[in-house]
Structures are given as C-alpha cells and as structure tokens.
C-alpha cells in the first residue's frame, strides 16, 4: 500500500514536471519550409524560394537577408503587366500577419541572390540569414538546398 502511494506520487510528480517543461519550451515564433536555391549557371544571380510561417502573436516583417555564399541578397517580386516582365525591389520588406505565411515562389516573391562567391552544385546546402523586424532574435539562419534550374 505504501509502495502504491509512492508510485502514484512519483507518476504525478513526473507528469507535473513534464507539463512544466512543456510550458517552458517556447514554440518557435516562425517556421521556414521548403527553402531552396535554384541553380543558375554562369555566375549570374539566382533565386531563393521558401515559405515563412508566422506562429507569433505579432505582425512581423522580413526586411532583408544576407548569405556568406553571395555578395548581395535582395527581396524581389516579379511583376508581369501587359506581357512585360520586370522585377520590383521590396524596399519595405514583406509583412506577415500572425498565423499567416509569406510564400516565395517562381514568378512571384523571391530572394535575389547576387554575386555567388563560390561554384554551387545541386544538393549543396547554403546558409541564408533572414533578417526580421518585431521578432526576437531578429536574425534567423536558414539552410537552403540547391536545386536544379529546371525545378519549379
């Protein structure tokens, strides 16, 4: 009987501890999925695509990005109007409201990755640091996978 009480007490204590630890571990405020760089040969700029989910309670803003693999990274959007295509620098960044996501995809938002510093190959991992406003920490390093230029 004493043993049974001890076991029950132990189980309750463990459950409580688990719950407490669960409460302690904060949910990541953002999540980045399907991060990829489409390989373009010839030393020209490449495009980075991904989906950023905002799990936080705040409106956040992606304001910039940097990478050791590229000399310069900009946030661009492709605009097609009257059969004419051009790229637009997103100088105000990209705003993501709570519970929403920003999708960077072909013919739309993309990271413009300029001046590649080394020869990349399909399958390589490239680190790109995403810079946010209204979120801590402000800098989020993300591993992007290099995919073939023919992938969509």
């Amino acid at each position, binding site marked *: 009987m004493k043993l049974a009480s001890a076991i029950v007490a132990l189980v309750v204590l463990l459950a409580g501890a688990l719950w407490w630890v669960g409460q302690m571990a904060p949910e990541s405020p953002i999540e980045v999925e399907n991060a990829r760089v489409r390989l*373009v040969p010839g030393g020209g700029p490449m495009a980075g695509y991904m989906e950023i989910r905002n799990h936080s309670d705040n409106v956040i803003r992606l304001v910039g990005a940097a990478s050791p693999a590229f000399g310069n990274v900009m946030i661009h959007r492709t605009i097609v109007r009257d059969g004419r295509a051009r790229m637009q620098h997103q100088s105000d960044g990209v705003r993501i409201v709570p519970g929403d996501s920003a999708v960077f995809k072909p013919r739309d938002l*993309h990271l413009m990755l300029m001046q590649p510093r080394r020869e990349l190959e399909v399958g390589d991992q490239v680190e790109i640091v995403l810079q946010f406003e209204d979120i801590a920490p402000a800098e989020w390093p993300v591993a992007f996978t290099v995919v073939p230029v023919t992938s969509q």
Partner: protein
Amino acid sequence: MAGGVHGRAGDIAVSLAVTYIRDRATLALTIALAALLAGCADEGWHGKNITGLMPELEFTLTDENGNAVTEDVFAGRPVAMYFGFTHCPDICPTTLARLAAATRRLPQSVSEDLQLAFVSVDPARDGPEQLDEYTGAFSDRMLGLTGTQKQLQALTRRYRITYGYDEPDANGDYEVSHSSAVFVFDAELEPRLMLLDSLEVPQMVEDLERLLTKP
C-alpha cells in the same frame, strides 16, 4: 404626403428600372463574355494565336558560339523564341525550364524539328560564353542569341515587344524589363503563337503539339 408616396413609388420604379437595366447590362455582358470564352474554347489554344498578325521572322544577331547569324539558322524548322537576360533569376529560368520540359514531353515526330532560342536583350552582360553556359542548362537544342541594340530593336519591334534598363545600383547591377511570352514560329518562320508566361507545362505541350503536328 401624397407627393411623398408618389415620390417613393417613383423611386421604386426608377430603382426597379435601374435594376432591370443593370440586369440587362449584366446579362449582355455575360453573354458577350460567354461568347468570347466560347470563341476561345472553339479555337482551343491556351496561348494566344497570332497567325497572320505579325511579319515573318527576320534578324541578324550573334549566336552563343560568337557567329553572326540570320533567321536562316532556323530555316525549315519551327522555333520557340524567348526574350530575356541571364541576370534574371526568377521568371526567365522558370519560363525556359517549362518550355524545355514541354519540348521533352512532345511526341518525337513533333519535337525532333523544334528549335528553342533565347534572345538576350542585355548584350552588355551576355556575351557568347555566358549565353552558351546559360542555354545549356535548359536544353541542348536551345540556341543563345544577342546583338547590338540596333539589331535587337529591329527584331523586337517586328513583334511589338519592348525592353528597357533600370538605373544601375551602387554595385553596377541593373534590372531589365522584357517580354514575358514565348513566340512560336512555324517551319516557314511565320509567327503563329504566343505562349504566355502563365501557362503550365501540359498547356504548352498541348499548344505545341497541335501547332506542329504535321497533317
């Protein structure tokens, strides 16, 4: 009071009439739209049929091997031509990759003759070597072409397309605006079809197969 009622009745009558006219207009618009859509559906193209609307292909440019070439380089074979630049990381590779994928999915009898061409409207950055490396990433049968501004303008004006350059940034990088559609010319080098950038691979395959299948 009576006037008020009258007025109200009048208002209702007017409002009914307006609704009626609006409905009629909506109906007319719907019919027109349906007819238009039916027309498109009858025609059956996903892209835009430009048969007879523009002059035949004609140019003098430099190819990716550094040779001066004219439209004769494609003579007797159909060609799908895209105007872009290699420092275009998003829409150019997306469209060229779709075009190359569509070409690979065509029946061999249709695809064996089809040539692909990438015309760079950014000759300052796109020399033959750069073009060769770029086009090779998409398809062996894609020929890179560029030229002087005069040569490029002579070609783009024939197809009523424009291109332009933004001011360079601090690094000397600049953006180029360009046409977003693929122009398809038949074996006689007559312009036949514009494959819009919004088309997916299966739609490109259907259009190309329909246009290029020999009777």
